[in-house]
């Protein structure tokens, strides 16, 4: 079990927390390399069946979807009840009827596993990325708990 502070936080550190984070990071660097890896997951039938964390919360998921930081899904996706959204991606209305929770989970974790040419960022992946800004290097965009919140909320969109 890696120390908690090695798990990727959802946003870069700011202000007075920097020093503590830096010290924690140092502890991670000297810890075994495995500490930096994300918990493994299994892809089956185009989805990830096993939750990555405790059951999510639909209200938190809804707030995340529209929040500028850290998820910012509406940069690309229209969604029910959202007034301003981009149109680079399919609207999320009815997505809970089209996809199972397992399929939703994989799309959030790493859409490139389904479509290698996708423009949708991987929200729970740290490997195979190039020139990531230092503030986000080695961190996932969302935490496992946030992925679960989104899965629960998206499943309600029928």
């Amino acid at each position: 079990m890696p120390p908690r502070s090695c798990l990727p936080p959802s946003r870069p550190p700011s202000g007075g927390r920097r020093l503590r984070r830096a010290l924690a990071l140092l502890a991670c660097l000297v810890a075994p390399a495995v500490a930096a890896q994300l918990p493994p997951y299994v892809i089956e039938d185009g989805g990830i069946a096993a939750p990555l964390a405790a059951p999510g919360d639909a209200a938190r998921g809804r707030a995340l979807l529209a929040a500028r930081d850290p998820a910012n899904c509406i940069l690309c996706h229209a969604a029910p009840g959202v007034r301003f959204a981009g149109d680079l991606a399919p609207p999320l209305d009815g997505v809970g009827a089209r996809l199972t929770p397992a399929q939703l989970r994989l799309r959030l974790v790493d859409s490139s596993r389904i479509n290698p040419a996708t423009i949708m960022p991987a929200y729970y992946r740290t490997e195979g990325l190039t020139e990531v800004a230092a503030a986000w290097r080695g961190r996932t965009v969302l935490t496992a708990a946030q992925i679960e919140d989104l899965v629960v909320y998206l499943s309600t969109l029928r």
Partner: protein
Amino acid sequence: MVRGVGALLLGLACVAVPAQERSLPAGALRSGSTYLSPELRAMQEDGFANPGMLWVEKGAKLWGVRAGADGRSCADCHGDARASMRGVAARYPAFDRAANRLLDLEGRINQCRAERQRAAPFAFESEELLGLTAHVASQSRGLPLKVAVDGPAAPHFARGRMLFERRIGQMNLACLHCHEWNAGRRLLAETISQGHPNAYPIYRLEWQSAGSLQRRLRACYSGVRAELPAYNSADLLDLSLFLAWRAEGLAIETPGVRR
């Protein structure tokens, strides 16, 4: 030395492959201003309403100011910019054989400053450098972009294309994904253009200031949460050269106005 050999090999490779296929043929090119709201477009086109003209005017004043150890002004060497600078911006970035490197218009102006005026170069994004660049570039308004990408520029061009097409940052996106696959679509509230450099320096409302192409490119890097390349780095210059080639034939519109 090692770098020289690498560049040479890269140069030879470029001669061998047809590096110049265009994904945006001339007929499909659209200037960034065609994606603006009618209000912003009108603001850009109206010389009095366009805030970028303030920088052009600052530059026009500086053109005649003597500076440096040699006490010379731009005008002392180049005369009337309306004649001597017409068409210059359309050829930049350009490889400079004497300096043995790629220079964008800002880089060229600073080189004149250092070597011909023997004055301290202007800082990136300073009022002076933006002003002189806007002044010089605006002399080419209406002329089509046409940069050289052969000879010593070839390896820079090839690298620029590679940088345009590779995925970067935590968002794992390439320039291509937004500016070729999704031009005309909206990223939240912003309409994505084809990403052309033909109106720079621009006045951007969000900045409440004029800004260079390099500043805009850094904003795109930051948007995908990628490491920011330094001003005047090889990455930004090589990308600028590729962008200018990709926009070949588009008329220069400096100073542009953007959201």
